[in-house]
């Protein structure tokens, strides 16, 4: 049964029509045409579809759209602005420091999993400004990469942490 729902995505409230049990992912991808969250498994196993819901990394492929009403959803598209709000910057940078660090490390191969990698990495850096290698691995362990780029993602997260620390001082 399709109903009208209001959901807040990247600080913008959108009226969407969907069955309430529709996974958030399909609404974000098909109704709002966002390209950050993307289908990987539909089973919350891989992290491809990750978004932040009130700042917490959430698998959009198993999250009913109705459950995020009244909450704030941030996708990869909205991550720089989310970072700016967190750090009280006057305006959103072009990229979150982790996005830039992944380019600096030339980390990507196909890059499809990087939506989830960036969302999860940004969530980690918001909680822990200077994570150890073991803490990074533990935080990221639920996100898979088929191309095998883990070593460069690890380096990029450490690099981003250093950049953020440098911006603060």
């Amino acid at each position: 049964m399709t109903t009208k729902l209001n959901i807040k995505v990247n600080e913008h409230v959108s009226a969407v029509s969907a069955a309430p049990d529709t996974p958030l992912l399909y609404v974000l991808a098909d109704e709002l045409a966002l390209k950050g969250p993307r289908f990987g498994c539909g089973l919350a196993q891989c992290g491809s579809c990750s978004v932040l819901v009130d700042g917490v990394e959430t698998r959009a492929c198993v999250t009913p759209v109705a459950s995020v009403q009244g909450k704030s959803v941030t996708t990869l598209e909205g991550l720089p602005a989310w970072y700016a709000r967190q750090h009280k910057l006057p305006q959103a940078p072009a990229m979150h420091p982790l996005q830039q660090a992944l380019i600096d490390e030339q980390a990507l191969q196909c890059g499809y999993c990087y939506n989830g990698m960036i969302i999860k990495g940004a969530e980690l850096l918001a909680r822990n400004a200077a994570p150890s290698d073991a803490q990074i691995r533990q935080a990221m362990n639920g996100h898979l990469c088929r191309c095998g780029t883990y070593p460069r993602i690890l380096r990029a997260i450490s690099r981003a942490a250093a950049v953020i620390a440098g911006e603060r001082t």
Partner: protein
Amino acid sequence: MSRTARLPALPRREFLKAGGALLVGFQLQPAFGTSPARKTPERGSVAGPPDPKQIDTWLAIHADNTATLYIGFVELGQGSTTALLQVAAEELDLDMEQIRTATVDTNVTPNQGGTYSSAAIQRGRPQVALAAAEARGALLERAAQRLGSSVEQLQVNKGRVSVLGHERPSVSYGELVGEKPFGLAFSGTAKLKSIDRYRLVGKPIARRDMAAKVTARHSYIQHLRLPRMLHGRVVRPRGQAAYGAGAKILSLEESSIAHIAGARVLRRGDFLGVVAPREWDAVRAAQQLKVSWEQPPKLPGSDSLHEAMQADKSQEQVALERGNLASGFTGAARSVVAKCYGPYQAHVPFAPNCALADVRDDAALVICSSQDVYNARRSLAGLLNLPLEKVRVQYGEGAGTFGHSCYDDAAQAAALLSQLAQAPVRLQFMRWDEHGWDTYGPAHVGEVRAAATADGRLCAYEYHGWQHGWSLVDTSAQLSGVAAAEWPPSPVQGVNPLAAGGMYDIPNIKLVNHRLPGLNYLRGAWLRSPLDLSFCFASEQVIDQLARDLRMDPYQFRRINIKDERWRGVLDAVASGAGWATRTSAPRMNDAGVVRGRGIGLGTHLVSYGAAVADVEVNVRSGVVRITHLYGAIDAGAVVNPGNVESQITGQLVQTASRLLKEEVTFDEARVTSLDWASYPILRFEECPDITPIVVQRLDQRSTGAGEETMAAAAGAIANAFFDATGVRMTRYPLTPSRVLAALAERGR
């Protein structure tokens, strides 16, 4: 209303922003030669492949002094597009910012063959370099006329030509050519730039697609939408049965999805799918549609697979025979025999395959992630019963595929659903479709016997390999009714003489294939470094054991048995990079029950040379193997972009760790049972080793593939490191804790 009137015919591929959605419009069958004044038809207006003997097929110079390079190789995340742009920009004396590629498209780009066997640089570099150099020659002739000089007296800087030693007067490529075609035959005889003048080739130029990919501006194929399209899903049993069995529908209750608005059931033969205007409705309809399937014939089951393979009736074929094996073994001081077992492993791209199709009565357009768009066009034309030139196939980048995943199957499914629905369709596989209906990397049994003389010279080597070939009929085509006569797998896959002992100087050698009847097993096709992991897992352990039995260092033993300087070079490179030192004492167990070891291995897939060193820890109580560090070296001749190759080595080594420790397709007596990331686990962050990629640069050699070679080497190195740590040889991978504990118990460890 006629069907062709339903969609607007656009003059060219256009991206339409509609409410934020990315829509792609197409011209299916443009009018041919609409502009009579023009000699050559507009690019993309006729079915390809364009004539490879024309410069215009490869290159266009634009009025703004930029260029487009047309290549037939697709970007799979390996970065070869950047490298081929480097090659062209080098010869043309353009900056990287001045050159780009076009979408691979059977109406636009040349047919350079499929993007597999690590061929993009190996085959593509000479073609692109020669075309660019020849175009430069033609541009300089025009510039010489314009500047009143001779070609020999000209210099080029960023596509701007002037007389040597002067910046002015000058003329740009763009001014010389504009958007006009060259209209020149491609002779392939231009003189290429000398190595000492390289500005771009051999440099780690950063890939330019990354910013768009990390900021969600890049469109993967999964993001493309067609106007007025429906969402499609295939309906199949969860997990394939034997390849020859297909999937036979006994009964179907269409009413079971009547409650889903707009959902329709579509069927041709045993090919079954659903479409719906909304994606979630298509997903639900595919899951809820009631179908009963015929019970398939019996599979051996993954636990009894290797026994069944050896008991099966196979066809023997000698792949290589040199010298006299019997006399080689007679003269030996030591000989070692081993039989090793490799599982089926899956491609399983991180994004399940997706394709879009708009099939009309007289023409079709299909967007898919095929590694070979021209081959996909051939199979689609047959399936849709359309002439070849009426089918246009465009490449859309998906997630890394590592060989023949379900991309052609998805393309066929989208095309069939579009034809049946009489509407454009976007088809995406679900995770269980991709995991369950893959054309897996085939399982293998390898028996190796090798011998060496007392002074450590390899004198005899024999390899027997049991495996089946590749299934070349994709599932959608098979289920929709392609004749059974076309099903039998290709016998192409056999023991690789380069990986099985080929790196060593062995006077007496024999390699034998035992070809299995593929219809009775799972679907098989090329998975990155096809079967080489299995060959080297067996072969490099036997070589290693000979060294141990002769009390020689495994690195030195390999070294004295190699004549080829490239093989010795890559071996030395990895040994030096890893700080290889001859072990002087046996490994000690720490209080936690962990032993550590180090191993070395060689391997390849085709032309290039690979070597690896592995450091592992084995917990003898839990059976958990942790690979702590992998070093991998490649000699791929002249490396155009060493940064890309380092990235490739990193991926190869991490994937090899995953394949050696975790990956195995499981199946019972009916069907495949590993259908997602829980039942088919791959390596995770906490298990990921440190990686040291080593590129052996040889700019004076031709460029060869660099996407596969360290995988087989690392498979051998990991197995040898396990032995170094435990004194036990593992004969079957993946090295799961239960298998490790069983092997240790058997040896009383």
